[in-house]
């Protein structure tokens, strides 16, 4: 067979690798800042764009889409060329992909601190950025599948199975979850409301974990781990089984984020059972990775790269064991809304994603720059500091979670909450927050050592931009299955069929779970007394979303005695039908607000209390971790945008009367004036057009409607 000579494009790999390092440092740095904000609220600096609620989405998006995202692309662009013995399909598409993605990150880094957000976790980016992500993702997909089509290798390797499933599934998830009706340049309302929005969001959210943080990382592992260990992959059969089981089962598991919440029971059960079934398919990846190291364990002692892989893959095994356990309803009842979740995801992000990427780049950089790693010693130092940082991050948070939930749930002999004051349960775990910030600091120090090592390595060599390679041309094979060819081997050489099967695997769960969730009316029993928000309350709600209040406050009371005693009657599905987007939250750094407005409820507060609390929470709750929001008092409500907001809501089926958009501002002024007059009784002088007025109006509306039905 005639050998063909061609060149691998290493420049694009270096570009993606470089920004992986850059955005990784930024993401971890922001993470450290928000960890410090939880320990020392003064670190919010009284500035809107530096508050926890706005920076937390920046941290999560930076780690997921900027650090891990670019890390994935580095792996894809390096490994695919070699696994398929061809240059990438198009240099131009690669550059558009690269620069497009970096522009998206910069746009996110500007808009999120400015408060432009969709208010859904890991889907905060505003609609124009969402469209840009979609377009760039398509460019990536075309470039990737084009490369597969032009390959010189008959069969596509397991790493590429994972890459293809990543591309397909993220495209579906991203588009469906981000559908929204814009009413401004960066503002929009989710097309789904309440329960349905929650269901779609966690179908997306959980599978962002699955198909952005897991499947492409497994692809990375299947190339870089056997390469670095120079050992054969342990079991091809296991690769097949765990790949298909993983992508088929993962897509169903989302509702485990909504257990005991206002989601239909059947959907909750789906979330439970599919999470449990996921355990072994997930472990299939870990087992195949660790057993591939058989015969190479002696080298783990000396090689920093292998050390990172061993801990990375083990962290994957830990978090995929923990995931199914946390999905059991009885465990979730305890763990949900606590720091347990935070610790869990950081084992995944720091250990699995972080360490796999570090291992990859330590191995890759000397090869790209045709040199030796500057310092193996520093790489080992990074490994140990990073591991220590991760332990010091996670263990205190597990401890904090258990401490806090036991305090939330404890009753005295007389049947009263033992710690009715929420703040007591927070001050108790503050020492754990200091330790966690220290853990994050160590992880960052390790990261900076890595940065130095990589810069020094790059400087000591020269980039091999075009790497010569040769391989025989692909001999066409008949598309019919050959005698002796297994069905899977057959599909491995037909990438279109393979992609279709992968799509089928992920769409089944999607259709069975999401479509009835959206279509079947009986899933959300109507409550007659639940009415749309007034324009003032709606404006307040948008401020609530803008400030990222959902990052610390839930709006979902589960049917547990400890919760109904503390917060009021448990939440009903029908209460959220006008909530675009839903704001149930996932962590209670502060109390649940679902019944904040219920007069006579356990957590009702007067208007004056809310005013003073927003101005400076520590005046009322001395140990509060909440940032101050003085700008709500100085800033005016954006009145010009109100008619557009009402019209957007009308488009979504919210029953405002015809022509109400023109009356909205007058309605607001009236309700606002009444509120301002009430505040005046407490000697608080504030104009009726300030944001604080809208915010208080929203607070006082929360959870109220259902109480009117009973009368």
């Amino acid at each position, binding site marked *: 067979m005639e050998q063909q000579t061609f060149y691998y494009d290493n420049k694009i790999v270096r570009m993606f690798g470089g920004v992986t390092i850059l955005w990784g440092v930024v993401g971890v740095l922001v993470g450290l800042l928000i960890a410090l904000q939880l320990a020392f609220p003064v670190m919010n600096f009284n500035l809107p764009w530096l508050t926890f609620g706005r920076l937390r989405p920046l941290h999560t998006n930076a780690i997921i889409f900027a650090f891990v995202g670019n890390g994935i692309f580095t792996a894809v662009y390096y490994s695919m060329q070699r696994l398929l013995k061809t240059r990438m399909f198009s240099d131009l598409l690669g550059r558009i992909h690269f620069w497009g993605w970096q522009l998206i990150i910069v746009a996110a880094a500007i808009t999120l601190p400015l408060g432009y957000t969709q208010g859904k976790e890991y889907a905060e980016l505003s609609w124009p950025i969402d469209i840009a992500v979609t377009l760039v993702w398509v460019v990536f997909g075309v470039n990737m599948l084009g490369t597969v089509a032009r390959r010189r290798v008959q069969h596509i390797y397991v790493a590429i199975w994972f890459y293809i499933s990543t591309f397909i599934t993220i495209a579906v998830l991203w588009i469906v979850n981000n559908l929204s009706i814009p009413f401004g340049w960066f503002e929009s309302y989710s097309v789904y409301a309440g329960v349905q929005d929650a269901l779609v969001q966690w179908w997306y959210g959980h599978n962002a974990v699955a198909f952005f943080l897991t499947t492409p990382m497994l692809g990375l592992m299947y190339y870089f781990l056997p390469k670095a260990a120079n050992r054969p*992959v342990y079991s091809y059969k*296991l690769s097949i089984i765990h790949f298909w089981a993983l992508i088929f089962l993962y897509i169903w598991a989302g509702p485990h984020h909504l257990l005991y919440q206002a989601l239909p029971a059947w959907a909750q059960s789906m979330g439970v059972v599919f999470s*449990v079934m996921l355990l072994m398919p997930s472990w299939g990846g870990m087992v195949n990775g660790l057993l591939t190291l058989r015969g190479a364990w002696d080298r783990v002692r000396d090689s920093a790269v292998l050390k990172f892989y061993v801990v990375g893959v083990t962290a994957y095994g830990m978090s995929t064991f923990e995931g199914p356990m946390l999905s059991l309803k009885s465990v979730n009842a305890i763990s949900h809304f606590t720091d347990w979740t935070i610790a869990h995801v950081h084992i995944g992000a720091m250990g699995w994603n972080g360490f796999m990427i570090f291992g990859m780049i330590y191995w890759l950089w000397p090869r790209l720059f045709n040199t030796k790693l500057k310092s193996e010693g520093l790489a080992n130092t990074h490994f140990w500091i990073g591991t220590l940082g991760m332990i010091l991050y996670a263990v205190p948070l597990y401890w904090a979670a258990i401490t806090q939930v036991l305090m939330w749930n404890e009753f005295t*002999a007389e049947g*009263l909450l033992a710690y009715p004051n929420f703040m007591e349960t927070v001050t108790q775990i503050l020492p754990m927050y200091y330790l966690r910030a220290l853990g994050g600091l160590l992880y960052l120090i390790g990261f900076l050592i890595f940065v130095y090592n990589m810069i020094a390595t790059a400087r000591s060599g020269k980039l091999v931009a075009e790497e010569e390679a040769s391989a025989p041309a692909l001999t066409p094979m008949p598309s019919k299955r050959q005698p002796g060819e297994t069905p899977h081997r057959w599909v491995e050489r037909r990438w279109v069929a393979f992609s279709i099967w992968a799509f089928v695997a992920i769409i089944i769960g999607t259709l069975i779970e999401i479509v009835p969730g959206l279509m079947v009316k009986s899933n959300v029993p109507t409550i007659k007394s639940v009415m749309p928000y007034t324009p003032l309350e709606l404006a307040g709600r948008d401020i609530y979303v803008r400030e990222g209040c959902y990052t610390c406050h839930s709006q979902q009371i*589960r049917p547990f005695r400890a919760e109904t005693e503390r917060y009021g009657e448990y939440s009903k599905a029908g209460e959220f039908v006008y909530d675009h987007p839903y704001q149930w939250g996932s962590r209670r750094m502060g109390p649940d607000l679902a019944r904040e407005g219920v007069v*006579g409820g356990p957590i009702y507060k007067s208007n004056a209390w809310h005013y003073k609390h927003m101005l400076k929470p520590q005046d009322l709750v001395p140990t509060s971790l909440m940032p101050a929001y003085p700008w709500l008092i100085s800033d005016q409500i954006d009145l010009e945008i109100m008619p557009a907001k009402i019209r957007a809501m009308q488009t979504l089926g919210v029953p405002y009367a015809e022509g109400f958009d023109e009356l909205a501002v007058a309605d607001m002024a009236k309700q606002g004036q009444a509120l301002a007059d009430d505040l005046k009784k407490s000697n608080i002088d504030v104009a009726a057009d300030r944001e604080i007025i809208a915010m208080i109006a929203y607070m006082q509306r929360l959870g109220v409607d259902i109480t009117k039905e009973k009368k």
Partner: protein
Amino acid sequence: MATEEQYDKETVDSKLMIDHDYDGIKELDNPPPAWLMWIFYASIIWSVFYVFYYHVFYDDSNIPDDLKVYGAQVSEYNLEVDDAIAAMPVSTFDEKSIELLSDEASMAEGQTLYATKTCDVCHGASNIGPNLSDEFWLHGNSIEEIFSVIKYGKTDKGMTAFKTQMTDVQIQQLTSYILVKMKGAVSTNTKGPEGKGTDMGNAEGAEDESADTSNAKGPEGEKHE
């Protein structure tokens, strides 16, 4: 296509798949570990049982099971609480027959409760609630009336009902502390007179007195004669 069998040198049990070579990466023909497959099958069987158990065989399967858990939990707790209360000394008073305490132990308890129930948040320097150290009262100054306000709240005005947070005895101690120890004390609350004055003084007098507190609110409520 391989007639000769190739074995991985270091793991002699594993056959190398000869036509699997991806940029030098080989694959072995090992079966998946049996334990892994068996646990996987078990999890599938468990899942089928789970779904059938909760959604098919339940007689009352149209009731969401979370609510059944809730009902059971509440009645279980209520039973426990009933037992605990039955075992306690009988409460000899309610808001109509409560007595003022003045012993040191009760005062100390009251003071602790005043702090831990964060009364000062609203009745101190924030001036959200009325000044408790002057002699003006919005809802009356008798022990019965104050006890009642603390226990049942004035929720429309933002005063929490503390019946879910304190026992009657604790509320009695707190009420007594407020009436005995706080009266005329220097408060961080700078609100002026609110409500009726007590027999200790009148509105003007109270304003003079409250000048050295930090609550700047004007008179609220009727003065008690």
